[in-house]
């Protein structure tokens, strides 16, 4: 698998400046011939709590799970977990993983047909069971799908404890069906598990959503990729964020790795490209000094796949130091966009329409400026955008709950900036 890492930045800093920003683009050509360099294990967790009986959700979930199973490549290990008050393995036998084949897929489909809704929602327990199953396959590309339609019913703090325990052990994409679940709760899981979160408002759309997630998972060819960031003495990493395809703060996931270096988990990789925003505080240098502010490597185990340098050069020439790097500016804006939307939604829920209007106005402006059309369109369903350029918006009196949840889940989705400066 061949990786490429490239840093985009304005390395010139004004005298006394100490903040160094760079966008690092990591791309991979995928495995040789598109093949995986490791085995793969897939676990599908379907909420089977009582509420799933409503609006034909259980039937839709069964159909989606069947479709997902059909997408699993031959040879891939898989299991299906039924999410009730406790976690129950639906297929294959408890504690086992099936090897995908026409026969095992047909057996799985028959098991799915028996799935009935009853009981409560215990996401922490579901994730723990998945983690135990994944344990059998060290080195595999590990991916899970979690489908739910409601709030977690476990005692406060339990889910957080589980996430701390299982974070980094597999990637989990989360989908909420209907509008009775909490975006913030699923986002918490997705963020901890390096996955995505999205709403599937209509049960009939579940099949397509599952197929898309499984297909993406089957495209991963490397299991556990990390970004290693070295910084010089007396420097601190302010943040490391994935900024494309979606905003995800990795700062807190740092694991120390040798002197002045730390690793940030990127999860599994296929033939794809992602952008990371790295911000480092360094001791200011003198005029003409050049410093290596960060050495950024893409690593898998002890293997360094690619490397790029983030530099700082102090200059008295303001023509150089005031140059704005388009990548950095663009993704700084995209991160602010996500924040503005989430703060706007929080303010609206708290009944603070004044703050909500301000935040949504800023969001409309940022989405418009950066050409993030998808987000702008979702925003327009929650507020009336009178003038996107100035950020003038009016709150809508009636907002469809699904639209607001879609805006919330999509807030972190970013668009890419052109490469030329």
């Amino acid at each position, binding site marked *: 698998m061949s990786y490429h890492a490239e840093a985009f930045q304005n390395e010139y800093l004004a005298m006394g400046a100490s903040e160094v920003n760079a966008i690092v683009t990591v791309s991979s050509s995928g495995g040789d011939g598109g093949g995986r360099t490791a085995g793969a294990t897939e676990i599908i967790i379907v909420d089977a709590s009582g509420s799933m009986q409503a609006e034909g959700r259980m039937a839709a979930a069964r159909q989606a799970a069947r479709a997902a199973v059909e997408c699993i490549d031959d040879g891939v290990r898989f299991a299906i977990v039924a999410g009730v008050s406790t976690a129950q393995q639906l297929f294959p036998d408890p504690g086992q993983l099936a090897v995908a084949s026409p026969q095992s897929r047909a057996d799985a489909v028959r098991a799915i047909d028996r799935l009935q809704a009853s009981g409560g929602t215990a996401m922490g327990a579901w994730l723990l069971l998945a983690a135990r199953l994944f344990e059998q396959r060290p080195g595999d590309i590990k991916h899970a799908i979690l489908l739910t339609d409601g709030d977690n019913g476990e005692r406060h703090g339990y889910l957080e404890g589980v996430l701390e325990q299982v974070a980094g052990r597999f990637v989990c994409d989360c989908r909420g069906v209907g509008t009775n679940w909490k975006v913030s709760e699923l986002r918490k899981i997705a963020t901890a598990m390096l996955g995505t979160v999205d709403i599937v408002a209509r049960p009939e759309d579940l099949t397509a959503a599952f197929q898309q997630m499984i297909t993406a998972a089957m495209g991963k060819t490397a299991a556990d990729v990390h970004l290693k960031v070295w*910084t*010089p*003495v*007396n*420097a601190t990493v302010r943040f490391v964020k994935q900024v494309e395809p979606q905003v995800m703060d990795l700062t807190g996931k740092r694991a120390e790795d040798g002197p002045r270096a730390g690793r940030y988990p990127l999860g599994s990789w296929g033939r794809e490209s992602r952008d990371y925003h790295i911000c480092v505080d*360094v001791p200011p*240098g003198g*005029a*003409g*000094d*050049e*410093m*290596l*502010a960060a*050495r950024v490597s893409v690593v898998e185990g002890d293997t360094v796949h690619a490397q790029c*340098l983030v530099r700082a*050069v*102090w*200059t*008295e*020439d303001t*023509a150089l130091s005031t140059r704005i790097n388009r990548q950095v500016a663009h993704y700084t804006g995209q991160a602010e966009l996500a924040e503005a939307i989430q703060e706007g939604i929080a303010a609206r829920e708290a009944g603070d329409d004044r703050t909500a209007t301000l935040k949504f106005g800023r969001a409309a402006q940022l989405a418009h400026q950066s050409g993030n059309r998808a987000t702008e369109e979702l925003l327009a369903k929650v507020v009336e955008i009178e003038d996107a350029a100035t950020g003038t918006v009016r709150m809508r009196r009636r907002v469809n709950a699904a639209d607001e949840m879609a805006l919330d889940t999509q807030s972190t989705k970013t668009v890419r900036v052109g*490469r*030329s*400066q």
Partner: protein
Amino acid sequence: MGGTPGPGGDAPGRGGRDCPHCGASTALDPDGYCQECGMLAGRPRDHTEADGEPVAAAVSDRGRRHHRNEDAMWLAVGADAADVVVCDGVSSSFDPDVASEVAARTAGELLARAQHPVRPARPAADEPTGELARPQPAQAGPQQAGPRPGTASPQQARPQPAQAGPQPTGPQPAQAEPEPSPTPPEPVGPGTQRAEAGPHPAEEGTEAIADPDAPTEPLEPARSEPAEPALPVAEVVAMAIQGAGAAVAALAGTGDPRRAVSNPACTIVAAAVRGPHVGFGWVGDSRAYWVAGSGPAEQLTEDDSWARHVIALGVDPRVAMNDPKAHAITAWLGADAGRITPRIGAFTARVPGHLVLCSDGLWNYLTDPADFGDAVRSALRIATGPRPLLEAARALVAYANSAGGADNITVAILPVPPPSPAEAGGDAEPSDNEPSEA
């Protein structure tokens, strides 16, 4: 390493393993950054030296305020001959350091390959007297006759038996670049092809470089009294500068896409010395000076700069030079420069002196010609080691650095006429080149 006269381009800090910034021992990465403090220890181009003793020497240095050296130089010396190029990257362009490096190398290689119409005067092999190889004019040199170095006649300047002598050895690059170029660019001058054939009577050589596109607008002194046979040397220099201009212009379409938006650009000053004959040319504000045994230095070039332009219009030079726009150049090499029309000049030295080429990193601290002349002579006087020219060039760089080092500094020093092989074999005392000081 800067104090050790060593062969080739020196790169202080790079050879050592200790960090010069934080002192951490054996802490340098292969790419030159300290594994502790992250500071860049040095780049190969931060300080380079070209040792062409006793014919010429040149030093290029990053200075004190710039993060890299965007100047570049080329020096090639042969028997009684030298080619020298000094370029200064335009810092507002993208990759100016690449522009200067490409320009210096391209011009240098074109100079080295061109058949110069004036052969280095050389006594025949069976005339072993060094006396004949060097002119011994007792009368005042051109510099004392005012700004007319071209007035000296070739007959007065040099003995003629040279015409019967053996073909001169072509100039050889003398560690002028940290990395010698592996693939010379294609010659662009129409005269180059012919230049590779057979013996070259001066007339044919002159014809060979008669490029209709070649700018032939020499400076005032040369024009008023054509300095035959030095003028054809200058025309070769003009051709080399045009070739360098084409090479720099081509950079805009290569490498980083930002080059297309803000194309790499640089200045250039180049000179070819053949015996007492000197041809030079320039684009931008890098300069050539003639420094004789005494008196003010004579600035041979005329800056293509905003300051020069307004001074010509009558503005007080001190006011003009203090203007922020003073160093804005009005001509350069680069894709956006349009057709390159280098200005050229030529002269034949009647008394020994020194040709000095430099970037504005030096002359900006020595704007008074008298100061410049004194500084060069002083540097030569104190240079008493085995490599006096290199030491003198280092001393001038050190002077600019001690005065602030606000820009990259490049200096080349060439005694004219160059010491003949007879002298070259012996002790090349700087006083040889300064009879009036002796």
